């Protein structure tokens, strides 16, 4: 392990890899600073560009985009009260009042350092906590791996949307898309319509780019009305230090812990709020929260970046992604020939730890690249008309998808995926489960069929081994939880309604 950790650091110090980290961080900050363009879109756009690179520079670029995005989102939140992402909304509660007091530069500096602290601690957790999880998974056979794949699908389906049924349907769609092409065991063609192009299946990259970039790009133009007016505000950005270490270290520690746990156990969208309320609870000046509190900004920014690397712990060890970005990173790993699980650590340990180092280094890069000095430049980005961004995103998506295999057919697949993705979003279906179904589907099917071969077609192999039973029960619990919540909410609503009616009477 130590050998791989050192090897990973050495690999990351290659000039091209360093360049990719700087470039990725800058791109991430720019993307984050533009409201409506999230890390998922940026990473999905960048993945085709990484195809010609080695795995380390590729992961360095993607890690940079991921890290930079969090801090980038804080810039409009502080300057204009326009959150670049859902998490940065909490930042705006105290960042914007600080900006109004003439401390915009100080608030941006503080958010950059807080992001860096959260990101570094999260990357350290990735280095330290992944191996124990991998050690457990070494004892898994095909039936257990099948259940882990199902658990991964259920996690994404249940937790990355607000409707479990729609999440499962999205995952199933991904599984069906993944079964297009020649069946690797029997050689039978499935859903190919006798087309030579479909024999090798639908290209993951084209589907992923289409589904993650086109719908948000098309939806961007509908936001134009709101963005222009607000961004017209003029706020001076003076680089200064407005915080003391003694004032924020406890908040950083607590928020990082919350963020790391949130990353490992995905699905909680309340981490920012939780960290904020905890910071308020332990603060000596809780009355300043919402009016320009230093601890408030530190908490929300630190927690936002503390789940970046930790979300990769279950992703890398077991192939269970817990966020949209983790889904995309999983796809990126597969594209570069790496499959998550124990094999990943024995075959590509240096690359895995190199990725963790990339998260550390890109977090450190935030301090010079995303501090108040740089924010003056990035603030101008908000003056870029959103209408101009749409064609830039579309042209880049088309170019990246075409260049991936020099194929126009991939571009058509990307377009079709984009249209399907837009329809899904408009009909409240989450889109991340489609991609995870596509990525995990082949593995799940392979392990299902190997298990059946091992048991001579006896399906009881899936429910007769202790670890399989445990994972199966966890999956069932995960799927049942939203139903339990819905019933509990309904009961609570009825009670409050009855109380209200009784009070009226």
């Amino acid at each position, binding site marked *: 392990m130590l050998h791989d950790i050192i090897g990973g650091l050495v690999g990351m110090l290659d000039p091209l890899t360093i360049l990719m980290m700087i470039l990725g961080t800058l791109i991430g900050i720019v993307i984050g600073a533009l409201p409506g363009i999230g890390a998922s879109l940026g990473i999905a756009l960048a993945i085709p560009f990484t195809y*010609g690179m080695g795995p380390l520079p590729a992961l360095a670029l993607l890690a940079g985009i991921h890290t930079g995005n969090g801090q980038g989102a804080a810039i409009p939140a502080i300057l204009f009260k326009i959150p670049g992402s859902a998490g940065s909304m909490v930042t705006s509660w105290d960042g914007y009042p600080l900006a109004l007091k003439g401390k915009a530069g100080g608030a941006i500096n503080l958010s950059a350092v807080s992001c860096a602290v959260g990101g570094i601690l999260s990357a350290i957790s990735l280095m330290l906590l992944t191996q124990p999880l991998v050690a457990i998974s070494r004892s898994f056979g095909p039936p257990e791996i099948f259940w882990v794949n199902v658990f991964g699908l259920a996690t994404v389906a249940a937790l990355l949307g607000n409707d479990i049924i729609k999440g499962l349907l999205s995952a199933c769609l991904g*599984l069906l898309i993944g079964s297009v092409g020649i069946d690797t065991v029997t050689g039978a063609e499935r859903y190919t319509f006798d087309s030579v192009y479909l024999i090798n299946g639908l290209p993951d990259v084209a589907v992923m780019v289409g589904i993650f970039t086109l719908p948000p790009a098309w939806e961007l133009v509908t936001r134009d009305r709101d963005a222009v007016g607000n961004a017209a505000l003029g706020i001076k950005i003076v680089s200064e230090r407005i915080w003391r270490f003694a004032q924020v270290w406890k908040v950083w520690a607590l928020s990082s812990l919350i963020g790391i746990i949130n990353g490992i156990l995905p699905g909680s969208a309340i981490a920012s709020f939780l960290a904020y309320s905890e910071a308020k609870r332990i603060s000596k000046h809780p009355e300043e929260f919402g009016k320009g509190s230093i601890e408030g900004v530190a908490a929300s920014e630190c927690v936002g970046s503390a789940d970046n690397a930790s979300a990769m712990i279950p992703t890398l060890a077991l192939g269970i992604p817990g966020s949209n970005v983790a889904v995309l990173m999983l796809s990126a790993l597969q594209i570069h020939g790496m499959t998550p699980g124990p094999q990943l650590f024995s075959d590509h340990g240096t690359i895995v730890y190199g990725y963790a180092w990339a998260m550390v280094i890109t977090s450190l890069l935030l301090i010079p690249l995303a501090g108040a000095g740089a924010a003056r430049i990035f603030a101008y980005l908000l003056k870029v008309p959103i*209408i101009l961004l749409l064609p830039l995103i579309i042209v880049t998506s088309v170019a990246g998808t075409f260049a991936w295999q020099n194929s126009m057919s991939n571009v058509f697949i990307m377009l079709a995926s984009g249209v399907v993705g837009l329809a899904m979003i408009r009909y409240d279906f989450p889109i991340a489960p489609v991609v995870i179904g596509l990525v995990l589907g082949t593995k799940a099917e392979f392990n299902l*069929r190997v298990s059946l071969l091992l048991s001579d077609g006896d399906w009881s192999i899936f429910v007769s081994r202790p670890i399989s039973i445990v994972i199966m029960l966890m999956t069932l619990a995960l799927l049942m939880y939203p139903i339990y919540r819905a019933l509990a909410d309904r009961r609570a609503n009825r009670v409050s309604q009855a109380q209200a009616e009784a009070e009226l009477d």
Partner: protein
Amino acid sequence: MQSIARKKDVVSSVVVFAGALWAFLEAESFSSGAAIFPKGVAGLMMILSVIMFMRAVAFPSFLADTIGNMDSWEFRRMAIAAVGTVAYILLIIPIGFVEASILYMLVNCYGLKYRNYKVVVITSVVFAFLVSSLFQRYFHTPWPEGVLSRLY
């Protein structure tokens, strides 16, 4: 909002059921080993879509929050953006990547009523050439030949 969610769920459950039924029937023609997985997935989709339909019809209070319908301003703009993208992609082979990209950026901005023509023209030309040459130089991408290079 609940009526919108209900309508959406009814429509999508019917569409999903039809698609899953087709996938299930299509999988009947695969050899037995190759059919297990797609048939299982399609079967699960049919069951889930029936549950979704029943929930929308009989238990609408269980429906999750939905995004509202777009107003005509939003719909028109999104339609322009989406149709423009389709037209752009269809034009790449006939007229070339750079030419189609420049044309798309110009027409898109015009269609969406952005009237700073100087910015649009400079951005379109510079960006199209930048992306094209970047890919040609570093990824050796053979872009579809453009009308301009065919003429000259």
